């Protein structure tokens, strides 16, 4: 059975149909890519599935259970994590604290206990800090473990978002253009990182413009154009699809 099932999903902003009747499903354990020209509705699709936007119509099912219209924090409790195309880092916190926030649901959030600094809470927090540092090393941010978030370069912040998402111990992770704005070397590193994440058993959904990375990593690819599904299949299938070729040749280079 597939992990995520999307059926006839649509959202309209006023008269703009940003996503229209899109259907697809994702099996557990794979890397799934969503591609398409700018403005095709890729990020909107992510926003819909992760609860940031409420769909106008259609159905989203996670493990057979309907999650359409649920809030992002409810989805987080079901193991759905994501990163953002435009960075959403908390610049008022240190780098490691950003990662620790990712573990929000795994920690005791009680206000009273926190104010009294109960030993149990303190101990768990110290463990979490160690785990967060470990995650930062996992994504290649060894030298930023003690850094402030607002002192980090762009490429490092991209990875910090991945570390934060991983701190949730997610089952399904949405990566929105993890390589955007990175140089060739950094892109290769992110490519390896995504592979490592997938190998650790997390299902990965990826929006990315770097075709080499997409073809290299993903088992299946969904192509969007003007908010509609243009094609879906393996890299090979998608590459040969005449509609895709037309769309990319017409709208792109």
């Amino acid at each position, binding site marked *: 059975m597939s992990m995520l099932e999307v059926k006839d999903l649509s959202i309209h*902003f006023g008269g703009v149909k940003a996503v229209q009747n899109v259907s697809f499903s994702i099996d557990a354990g794979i890397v799934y890519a969503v591609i398409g020209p700018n403005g095709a509705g890729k*990020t909107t699709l992510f*926003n819909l599935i992760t609860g*940031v*936007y409420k769909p106008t119509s259609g159905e989203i099912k996670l493990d057979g259970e309907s999650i359409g219209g649920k809030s992002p924090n409810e989805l987080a409790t079901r193991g759905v994590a994501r990163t*953002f195309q*435009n960075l*959403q880092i908390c610049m008022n916190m240190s780098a490691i604290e950003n990662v620790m926030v990712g573990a929000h649901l795994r920690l005791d959030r009680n206000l009273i206990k926190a104010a009294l600094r109960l030993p149990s809470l303190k101990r768990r927090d110290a463990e979490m800090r160690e785990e967060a540092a470990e995650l930062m090393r996992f994504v290649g941010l060894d030298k930023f473990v003690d850094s402030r978030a607002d002192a980090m370069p762009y490429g490092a912040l991209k990875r910090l978002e991945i570390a934060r998402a991983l701190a949730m111990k997610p089952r399904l992770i949405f990566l929105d253009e993890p390589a955007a704005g990175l140089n060739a070397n950094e892109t290769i590193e992110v490519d390896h990182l995504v592979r490592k994440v997938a190998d650790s058993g997390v299902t990965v959904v990826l929006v990315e413009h770097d075709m080499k990375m997409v073809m290299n990593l993903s088992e299946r690819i969904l192509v969007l154009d003007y908010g509609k599904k243009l094609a879906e299949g393996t890299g090979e299938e998608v590459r040969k699809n005449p509609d895709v070729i037309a769309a990319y040749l017409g709208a792109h280079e």
Partner: protein
Amino acid sequence: MLAQFLQFLFSGVTVGATYALAALGFTLIYNASNVINFAQGEFIMLGGMLAVYFTQAGLPLPVALLLAILIPAIVGIIVEKLAIEPVKGAETVTLIIITIGASLVIRGLIQVWLGKNTFSLPAFSGDEPIQILGATLLPQSLWVLGVTAIVVVALWYFFNRTLQGKAMLATSFNRVAAELVGINTSWVLFMSFAMSAALGALGGILVTPITLTSYDVGIMLGLKGFVAAVVGGLGNGLGAVLGGLLVGILEAMGAGYISSSYKDAIPFVLILLILFFMPRGLFGGKSTDRV
């Protein structure tokens, strides 16, 4: 019955027009800069107090009134240049504190200069009340309503038919895009403060013959103008005008039928109810954040 109702309505609409002008002032500045200008009420006070001062100094009424509008406009510009422009893009709280600081300075200066007394201004065209269905309407109320109506029409013309007005409107929709097409957004900010201050002052002048004035009337008038702007859906010009009238009328009705000692609380009860049940104001639009 009807007479009483009309009486409340007249006084509500009159004071509501002042709120409407203040609310327009809030709206102009909010649209240009996303700042809530807590000094808006002080411009209302300045208008009234300066009008009193200049008429008592023996200047002919039209000259006195003109000065009482021009000077607050200049004060508005000074506030913008010295206090708002240097901190562009600061946090909301910071901007609120700055405008509150500005309001204290203005109020304090007037208090030092003109004292703590209450002043009145002679009505522009006599005090002979007009009888309408058993209710009385002061001629000054007609002045308030007439001038407000003219101002609203003039503003509508300015924003929809002149290049400068359209530039200001464009800036409120999308600052970056406005800059890209060559609009001087810094000029827009400057104009917004000047116009807001002038609008506030005008309201203050018009209503002073009815409500009297003193150095500290600005706080409540300003806050009620803010309520009116939010009632109308923050940023919506027509909404601000309707919001002002609505707040004025409800306040007068509440004071008349329910309790006059809770008169000042009525606008705030209204706004809490609106925020609870119609969070974007009565005339506000819908917006979605992009991430």
